[in-house]
C-alpha cells in the first residue's frame, strides 16, 4: 500500500465503486422491484450511515469545527476522516433519493428515457436532479390537466 494513501482514501475508492454500481443498476435495471435495487436502497444508507456514525461519534468533538459558520464547517472538513464521512453522507442520501425519484417516476409512467437523464443529473448534481424531477412531474401533470 503506498504510504500516502490512508484509510479514508481507500474507503473513498471502495464506496465510490459500490455507489456507481448501485446507480448503474438503478438506471439500467428494467425491473425496479428487483432485489438488485430494493436491497441497496436500504443497505447503502445503513452501511454508509454506520461508517459515518463511527467517524462522527469518535471525531466530531475533537475536530475544532462545527456547524455554526462556514469557517467552522471548513475546520470540520479539514480532517480527512470527517471529510470522508461527509462525502458518504452525500452518497447515501443521494442514492436513497435517487431510488425515490425512480419509484415516483415509474408511478407516473414517466418514460425510462427521461428517467435516465434525470437520474444521471441526480447522480452528478443531486439537488439539481431532484428539482429537475419534481418540476418535470409538476409540469407534466399540469400539462395533462390543462389539456384534458
Amino acid at each position, binding site marked *: 500500500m503506498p504510504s500516502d494513501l490512508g484509510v479514508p482514501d481507500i474507503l473513498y475508492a471502495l464506496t465510490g465503486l459500490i455507489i456507481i454500481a448501485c446507480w448503474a443498476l438503478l438506471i439500467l435495471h428494467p425491473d425496479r422491484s428487483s432485489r438488485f435495487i430494493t436491497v441497496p436502497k436500504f443497505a447503502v444508507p445503513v452501511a454508509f450511515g454506520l461508517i459515518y456514525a463511527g467517524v462522527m461519534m469518535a471525531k466530531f468533538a475533537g475536530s475544532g469545527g462545527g456547524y455554526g459558520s462556514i469557517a467552522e464547517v471548513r475546520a470540520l472538513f479539514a480532517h480527512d476522516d470527517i471529510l470522508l464521512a461527509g462525502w458518504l453522507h452525500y452518497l447515501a442520501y443521494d442514492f436513497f433519493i435517487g431510488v425515490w425519484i425512480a419509484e415516483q417516476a415509474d408511478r407516473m409512467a414517466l418514460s425510462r428515457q427521461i428517467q435516465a*437523464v434525470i437520474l444521471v443529473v441526480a447522480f452528478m448534481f443531486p439537488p439539481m436532479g431532484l428539482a429537475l424531477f419534481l418540476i418535470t412531474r409538476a409540469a407534466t401533470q399540469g400539462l395533462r390537466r390543462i389539456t384534458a
Partner: protein
Amino acid sequence: MRSALPLADDETTHAWLAVAGFMTAVVVVLTPGALYDARLLSGADVWAKPLKFALSLALHFVTLAVLAQLLRPEARTDRSMSRLVRVSVAAALFEIAYIAFQALRGRPSHFNFDTPFETGMYALMGIGATLLVVIPFLLGLRIHRQRDGDRSAYRLGAVIGLLLAPILTLVVAGYMSGVAYDRWVGDGMGASIPVLGWSRVAGDFRPAHFVGLHGMQVLPLAGWIADRIAPAQARRIVWGAALLTVVATIALFAQALAGRPLWPL
C-alpha cells in the same frame, strides 16, 4: 368545427407531454445558473443556448401531442407510432443533454471541430436534429393519408405545417450546419437582438430557421382561428399563410446569405 382539445389519455400523448414537462423543468433548473454564470460563448451567455433549446423543444413536443390528436386513436398508438415516439424522445434528450453538457464546460456544441469527440458529437447532433424534424413530417404524412372527411382549416394547417416546416428547416438549418458551418455570414460578434440573440451586425441564418420551424405552430393555429372567424375562407387563409411562411423563410435566408442582419444597428 374541429377542436384541438381535449387531448386523449394514451401513451403517445403522455410521452410527448412528458418531454414538454421535462424541457420546462430544464428551463427552470438552468435559469439560476444562467443568472449567476458570467461566462460568454460566441458572444452570448453560455446558458442562452440550452435555455432556448429547452424552451423550443417544450413547444415542439406540446405541438406534436396536440396535433397527434388528429390521428384516429388506434393509429396514434400502434407499433410504428410508438417507435416514432421513442426515437423522437431519444433525439430530444440527446440534443438537450449534450448542449447543456457543453455549456457546463463552456464549450461550443454546434460548429465545434476542436476535438475528435466534439466533431463526432456535432455529427450526432445533426442526426438528432434531423430526426426531430423528420418525425413531425412523418406524423403529417400519417394525418394526411388518413381519409377522414375532415375539411377543417385546422386539420389542413396541421398537415401543411407538419410537412412544410421540416422541409424549410432542413434546407435552412442544413445549410447553416453542413455548408456554412456557422450561424453567421460575416462576423456576428457584437450587438444582438435581446432574448433571441440574432446578430445586428452580420447575416444570421437563425431568423429564417425560426420562421421555417415555427410554421409548425403558426399554420395549425391560423387554421384553427380561421375556422372560427372566417369559416368560408378558412382553407384559403391557411394556404395563404403557408405561402407567406415560405416566402418569409426564403427572404430571411437570402438576407442572411447577403450578410445583412435582420435588424441592423
